[in-house]
Structure formats: structure tokens, C-alpha cells
């Protein structure tokens, strides 16, 4: 029985080696690495854009339910009466955006305007290459620099946002781009600092190494995810907050606040280019969620040892879908922040909290053998809860009661 489960678990890997083995006889020597790369890339390019397509429908339906309406429920399979509860919507949306006219403003900088969506999509897609999707399933295992690779590519998306906003020659585009860059630069620091705690404990920058560092089994059934520590729990929520800001998700979606600046940096984009922006934004969110899963939620590891028979890639995808649903729920629930609140939150709350969290993680690591478990837990939480309370109070006092100048 165990062999069957293991065969299902390793099915993508065995399929790849089988295909490569057969190709070795037919293809020339130099083409084999290319084929191997193509075989790793194809599943990523198939799974994640499909997940994006389904997410757009689920998001619209979920938001509809939260707002007490139905959301899309008409489009099914074309030319039949099968409606699939509206899950054909993404095909219709895709056809629509592909056939729409591509409008470029007359005064726009045509070359930069054309390059911006491509320059956004490529780094986002490249980030997927270091994520471990399952046991032995990392397209590009960088044993020394995996996490740094991810963050370096994440940082280079800011520039394409600027390219889009500047080349459109539109004040709303430029304002949106400036807002987006300021926000991404500010939230990158807490994002990296909260991920750094895991690097400190695991002692490696390799993402598959980080997953393996969580494989230890406690109490006979529980895998030691980094989430199950005081610093990991706090770090995960700090990471998630910063990731939401980095991916421009509500409540941090000021760069495209439609009530203020139309659609931010992609105001002047239409048709296929807009679709690419939309795709890149969601793929960026998925990659961030995937990184959060790898760092804190045990990657492809199951929570309990006895659930290990479920294939590892199912665990990764399941956790990913759960986090996506969480972000949809947040979008339906929370209102948008103001720009000053957004910046204040990053610099005055998230940054000190991540620094304190780094300190707590260091203490946790140093007291592994010398201090009993309960003391470490209580001490760790106390060290995190007190600054949280103080910072939170200070933050609330600064924001103050809102005055409605025109309503009163």
C-alpha cells in the first residue's frame, strides 16, 4: 500500500525521468538539458495560469456572496445549456480581453509602454522556479541562494510598475505608480525581515532545505512547522500582512484605488496588455502565498504524520488554495487604508514588530537545550505581546477619531 502512495506522490518526477530516458536515445546530447527544463516549466505554466483563471471566478462569486448577491453564474460550456455554476466565465473573459482593441495613448512612450507588462510578468514567473511544490519537486534548486533569488526578483517588479505608470503620460497612472512603488519599497523590509527569522532557525537559504527543517515529528504525530512556535506564529501573520501589501491586495490596494485614481498604473492599458498585468498580479500573489507556505506552513509537509499518505503536491496546492480563499475573504471584509495610515503601519508597527520577532527567534534558538519548553513559550509570547499592545495603542492614538468635515 505504501508503495502505491509513494508512486502517486512521486508521479511527476518519475514521469519526467521516464520521458528524459526515452528522449536520450532520440535527441542530440545538447538538447537534453533544454528538454529537462521544458518539462519542468510546462507544468508550472499549465497549473498556475489555470489556477488564476479559476481564482478570478471564485473571487467574483465569493465577493458576490459576501455582498449578498450571486456573482457570475451564467456562462458554462458554449453552445450547450450546461452552466457549470458560472465557471465558464473565465473563458469568456479571456476571449473578451484577447479580442479587445489595444489602445496606446498618442503621447505615450510607445516602447516602454509595450515593455512594461512583459517586464512585470517575467520576474513573477521566474520566482516560481525556486518554490518546492512537492517532495523532490523544485524546478531550480539553489542550495545557497534560493530565498535571495526570490526576493531579488520580487524587488525587480517595482521597476516595471514605474515603467507602466510613467510611460502612459497620465497623471493617474503616475500617481498610482508612485503610490505602488512607495508601498512596495516600504513593505519589502518587514517582508524580508519576517522571512529572515526562518532562515536564522533553519540555517539555510535553500527553500527545499527550509521545508526539510520542518520535517521533524513532535509528540509522535505533529510535524514541527515553524508556525507552531511563538515567533513563527507572529512571523507568519507579519509576513502575510506584508505579502498582501506587496501584492497590492485589499486593504493595501491604494495603487489601484478606483475611487481616487481610476485604475492606478494600468489606467491606460487595455485588451491583452491589461490581461497580462492582471495575470502577473495574481501570479505574484500566488508566489507570495507559496513562499509563506514554504517558510511557515511546512511547505509540502502534512500537518500530522498519519496524513502523510496524501501526495505532497496536494498538500502544497491545498494550502495555496486555502491562503487564496483567505485573501478573497479579506478583500470582501476590510476597507481600504489611507496613504498616511499605510506608510505609518509599515514603518511604525510592522518594522518594529519584525525586529522584535527576530530577537525572539534568536532567543528561542539559543534556549533550545537549556530552558524548559513552557518557559520558552510563555516568555516568547510575552516578549511579543507587550510590544504589540504598546505599538498598537500608539498607532491607534495617532490615527485618532475621524472627523467628517463636510458631513457634519
Amino acid at each position: 500500500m505504501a508503495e502505491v502512495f509513494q508512486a502517486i506522490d512521486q508521479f511527476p518526477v518519475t514521469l519526467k525521468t521516464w520521458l528524459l530516458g526515452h528522449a536520450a536515445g532520440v535527441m542530440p546530447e545538447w538538447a537534453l538539458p533544454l528538454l529537462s527544463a521544458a518539462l519542468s516549466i510546462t507544468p508550472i505554466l499549465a497549473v498556475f495560469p489555470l489556477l488564476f483563471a479559476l481564482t478570478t471566478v471564485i473571487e467574483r462569486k465569493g465577493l458576490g456572496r459576501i455582498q449578498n448577491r450571486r456573482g457570475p453564474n451564467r456562462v458554462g460550456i458554449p453552445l450547450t445549456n450546461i452552466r457549470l455554476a458560472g465557471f465558464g466565465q473565465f473563458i469568456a473573459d479571456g476571449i473578451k480581453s484577447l479580442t479587445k482593441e489595444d489602445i496606446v495613448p498618442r503621447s505615450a512612450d510607445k516602447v516602454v509602454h509595450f515593455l512594461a507588462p512583459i517586464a512585470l510578468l517575467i520576474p513573477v514567473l521566474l520566482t516560481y522556479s525556486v518554490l518546492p511544490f512537492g517532495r523532490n519537486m523544485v524546478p531550480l534548486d539553489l542550495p545557497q541562494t534560493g530565498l535571495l533569488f526570490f526576493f531579488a526578483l520580487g524587488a525587480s517588479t517595482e521597476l516595471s510598475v514605474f515603467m507602466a505608470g510613467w510611460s502612459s503620460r497620465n497623471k493617474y497612472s503616475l500617481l498610482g505608480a508612485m503610490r505602488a512603488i512607495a508601498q512596495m519599497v516600504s513593505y519589502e523590509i518587514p517582508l524580508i525581515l519576517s522571512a529572515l527569522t526562518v532562515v536564522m532557525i533553519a540555517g539555510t537559504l535553500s527553500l527545499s532545505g527550509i521545508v526539510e527543517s520542518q520535517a521533524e515529528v513532535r509528540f509522535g504525530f505533529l510535524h514541527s512547522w515553524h508556525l507552531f512556535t511563538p515567533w513563527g506564529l507572529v512571523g507568519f501573520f507579519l509576513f502575510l500582512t506584508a505579502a498582501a501589501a506587496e501584492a497590492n491586495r485589499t486593504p493595501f490596494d491604494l495603487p489601484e484605488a478606483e475611487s481616487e485614481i481610476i485604475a492606478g498604473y494600468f489606467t491606460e492599458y487595455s485588451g491583452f496588455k491589461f490581461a497580462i498585468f492582471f495575470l502577473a498580479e495574481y501570479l505574484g500573489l500566488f508566489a507570495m502565498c507559496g513562499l509563506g507556505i514554504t517558510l511557515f506552513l511546512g511547505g509540502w509537509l502534512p500537518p500530522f504524520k498519519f496524513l502523510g499518505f496524501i501526495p505532497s503536491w496536494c498538500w502544497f496546492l491545498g494550502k495555496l488554495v486555502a491562503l487564496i480563499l483567505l485573501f478573497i475573504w479579506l478583500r470582501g471584509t476590510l476597507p481600504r487604508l489611507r496613504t498616511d495610515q499605510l506608510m505609518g503601519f509599515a514603518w511604525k508597527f510592522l518594522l518594529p514588530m519584525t525586529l522584535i520577532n527576530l530577537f525572539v527567534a534568536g532567543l528561542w534558538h539559543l534556549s533550545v537545550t537549556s530552558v524548559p519548553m513552557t518557559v520558552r513559550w510563555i516568555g516568547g509570547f510575552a516578549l511579543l505581546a507587550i510590544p504589540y499592545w504598546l505599538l498598537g495603542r500608539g498607532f491607534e492614538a495617532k490615527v485618532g477619531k475621524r472627523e467628517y468635515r463636510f458631513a457634519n
Partner: protein
Amino acid sequence: MTLSFAILAGLTVGSAVAAMSLRNLVHCALGLVLTFAGLAGLYLQLNAEFVGFTQILVYVGAVAILIVFAILLTRGTEPANEPAAVSPWAGLPVAVLAFLAMAAAVLASPVGKRLAAPVPEVSVKTLGQKLMTDYVLPLEVLALLLTAAMLGAVIIAMKDKEDLQ
């Protein structure tokens, strides 16, 4: 000379020329970004992965963003009717002479013919241990410098009190 080196070197030098010679300042900044990316590629080719990705993180993610922000904040500084550069006869000969001197030195030196040793064992762990032991003083000085630079930049760029009122 390998093909990948030729491509990366061509990209780096070509985009550097673009960064220094284009009229539009934002185009120059984008050319500079390409140069940074090309250099990161050269670092990767030299087995310096950590420095290569740090290069992208710091230069593309931070320095380039700073530069484009500064360009936007000082807009309208190069009127269209004015040449973007002073007469090229002032700087170009100096640069060409400097290049010829350096190229002659490089080509004459026996060190230049050296081929790379087998890939050295570099791990981020030993890099970090070195930073915390042999290089701890430079590291602390650098931390101080970065803090001072950050405070200094904020204070310099902050508006004067009279301006605000």
C-alpha cells in the same frame, strides 16, 4: 570566450552606452537597470551567486528606484532646445585615453591569460561566519555608515520649516 559571456558583455556595455547617451533621463535610468542586470549575469557566470542576487536586490530594487524618483522630482531640468551634454571633446578623449591605458595594461599582463580554477567551495554560511569574525569591524562601521546616510538623506531632502509654512 564563450557565447554566454559574449552576450552578457555585449548587453552590459551596450546598455551602459545607452544609459550615458540617451536624451530622455528616464530612458537613461532604464538603460542603467539593464547594465545592472547584465552585471548580475556576469557575477553568476563567475560563480558569485550571492553577490549577483544582492546586486539585483540592491541596485535594481533600490538604487534604480531612487534614481527614477529623483528624475521625476527634478523634472523639466533639461530644456529641449539645450544640448544634453557639453561639447563631447571635453570628456571623450580623456575616457578613450583611460580605456587605452587600461586595455594595454590588461593585455600586456600575464595575469590576464589566467583561466579559472575549478569552482571554489563558497557557501553563504562561511560568508556569514567571516562577516561575524574577521570582518566584524568593517560590518559595524558599515552599519553606522548606512544609518548615518539614511538620517542624512532624510534631513537633507526634508523641506525647510519656512517652506512648509
